């Protein structure tokens, strides 16, 4: 069927003169990509699934033994792993909610005629363009209780942002919000500018209040694109590693990817860490699926 819908090659083109058919050109473009995908993504994915049922350690010469579901059982019975998951969930909720509120709020402010709008938008996008590691190192200095500028600016004295176990996760989330709100802002701005103006005019004629207009016109129309931003940020927040790793080493900020890294590359428990990676993968797919279902529902409205 696909060959029928494909546009045919111009018989005067160089490719046609060389005797290349439509099909061979398509193959020329697609096959390398597929091979690349199989070699670097699909193959390791399946291979590591196999490893997750063994006690393989990449650091030793000992042969891998099949242990069945032992790795999964051990991991799901480990209270430390559960606490890692709880921390990750808390982090995702705080950080994504924060980003949506700040990002969407800024987008609303920017969605009007103001001078230097382009410049302001560009400047607001800067944090997003920095490297995670650089942001982590900078914020570590900003949070420093002895000479950090945050405590100085807000008159907080010697408040310990990162070494206070109850505060550290929020401090990491705050940094993430600072960095990624612009992303939500950018998508929201695109959504906002696509809302037809005549809807607002009609609402104004009917004397609808600003809150009513927001909840009945703006939000429903921006929702699909906002959902896409939320999906992206949730997946990213779930996988957060660099920021949390650089900023602090509190057990209360040990998100699941840090535990996974330690297990795989410090302890070299390759089999066990493959199993953990699969558990994380399944969770991310499940959460994303829920979002996508919801997104489709929003779109239908």
């Amino acid at each position, binding site marked *: 069927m696909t060959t029928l819908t494909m546009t045919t090659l111009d018989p005067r083109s160089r490719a046609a003169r060389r005797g290349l058919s439509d099909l061979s050109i398509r193959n020329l473009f697609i096959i390398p990509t597929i091979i690349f995908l199989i070699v670097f993504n699909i193959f390791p994915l399946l291979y590591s699934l196999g490893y997750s049922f063994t006690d393989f350690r990449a650091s030793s010469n000992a042969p891998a033994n099949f242990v069945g579901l032992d790795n999964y059982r051990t991991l799901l019975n480990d209270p*430390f792993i559960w606490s890692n998951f709880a921390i990750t969930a808390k982090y995702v909720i705080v950080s994504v909610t924060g980003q949506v509120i700040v990002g969407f709020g800024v987008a609303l402010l920017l969605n009007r005629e103001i001078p230097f709008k382009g410049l302001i938008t560009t400047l607001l996008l800067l944090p997003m363009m920095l490297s995670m590691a650089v942001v982590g190192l900078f914020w570590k200095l900003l949070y420093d209780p002895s000479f950090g500028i945050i405590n100085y600016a807000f008159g907080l004295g010697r408040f310990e942002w990162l070494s206070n176990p109850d505060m550290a996760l929020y401090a990491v989330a705050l940094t993430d919000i600072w960095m990624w709100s612009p992303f939500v802002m950018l998508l929201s701005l695109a959504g906002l500018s696509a809302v037809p103006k005549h809807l607002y005019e009609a609402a104004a004629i009917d004397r609808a209040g600003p809150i009513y207009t927001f909840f009945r016109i703006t939000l429903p129309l921006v929702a699909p694109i906002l959902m896409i931003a939320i999906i992206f940020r949730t997946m990213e927040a779930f996988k957060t590693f660099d920021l949390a790793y650089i900023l602090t080493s509190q057990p209360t900020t040990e998100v699941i990817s840090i535990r996974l890294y330690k297990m795989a590359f410090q302890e*070299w428990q390759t089999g066990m860490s493959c199993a953990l990676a699969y558990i994380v993968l399944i969770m991310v797919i499940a959460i994303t699926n829920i979002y996508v279902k919801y997104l489709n529902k929003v779109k239908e409205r």
Partner: protein
Amino acid sequence: MRNRITGLVAGLGLTLACSTSVFAQELTIFWAEWDPANYLQELVNEYEAETGVKVTVETTPWSDFQTKTFTELNARGSAYDMVVGDSQWIGAASEAGHYVDLTEFFNKHDLNNVMAPATVKYYAEYPSSSGKYWSIPAEGDAVGWSYRKDWFEDPKEMEAFKAKYGYDLAPPATWAQMRDIAEFFHRPDQNRYGIAIYTDNSYDGLVMGVENAIFSYGGELGDYATYKVDGIINSEQNVKALEMYRELYGFTPPGWAKTFFVENNQAITENLAAMSMNYFAFFPALTNEASNPNAKNTGFFANPAGPDGHQFAALGGQGISVISYSENQEESMKFLEWFIKDETQKRWAELGGYTASAKVLESEEFQNATPYNKAFYETMFKVKDFWATPEYAELLIQMNQRVYPYITAGQGSAKEVLDALAADWNATFKKYNRVQ
């Protein structure tokens, strides 16, 4: 014409031959990024001048030294010929066949007697007391303490201290005295704090800090020969030692929850703390006025004794090992033969390296060279180390997981923490069939 072509080909051939032979005369040593690695580069430059063999010391930050080394070793890579690896790695690296067995070399040169006994025991031998050696002690190191002489010798402070505690203010001889002094100088309102200790739980910082207390309190981490831990890691002494470390944490500067050698030197240079724990390898920076404005007022002392007079310190430092996958093993062995010579070891110490050579350590010249060399010499004969079994990384992470929340946030009691740790370690040893 034909001659010219022949000449050209011959020239090309010669160039190729030369370049390959030059290539074979190069050695690469892998180490962490710190001052001693720079000193080693200076030392090996002299080897190049002598023999024409170019040796490069390649480095990476401490935080990923372990990961990078083992990634390379597990991939059986030949990028490095030798590695100056941490003492706790020998088990993992020797059992997996990453390191070349140096037993013959060791015996031939009688290194058992040439190098300080503790360095042989912890940097070179695995399994414990087996007579099998995997590395040549290169950089001896242990934990010592620096302190602010000007604060300690201020007559007003001395008087106030004596009035409060009933004995003279001086560098502490015991952990109990150290606690008193830390409490005495802890004045948050003046931005002055009592003590700086290791708390970083991302690698072995916190654990080595705690080891200093445990070993001096007469405790042990376990029986390294039989893998018995219950009743040893959670012994009475260890509980007391851990409680002491927790108490000292109360006298640290604010935000002292992810600190290792960098922060602990800053505690002295930035006028934050009266005393600071650190490896001897980082003390040269404290005596240098360019890096420490308080250089003239900085003194040093060895890790104090515990309540029963035991006095030990946590071992740092590394031995140099030949990597099995290196294509220049023979050349590496020649280099090691040069490295262990007395003259080389003496020169190594002069450049700032911490030699493990007993003869150099014992010499008057070495002991008087810096304000801390004498303390270093004394310490190097009473050091103890962490587990060196292949699964040490798991043991380390388990200890961090249990001990860190107690030290920095006071969660649980020392006894509970150590009991839980004993159970974790036991389970790990069972998993690897070390115990039944």
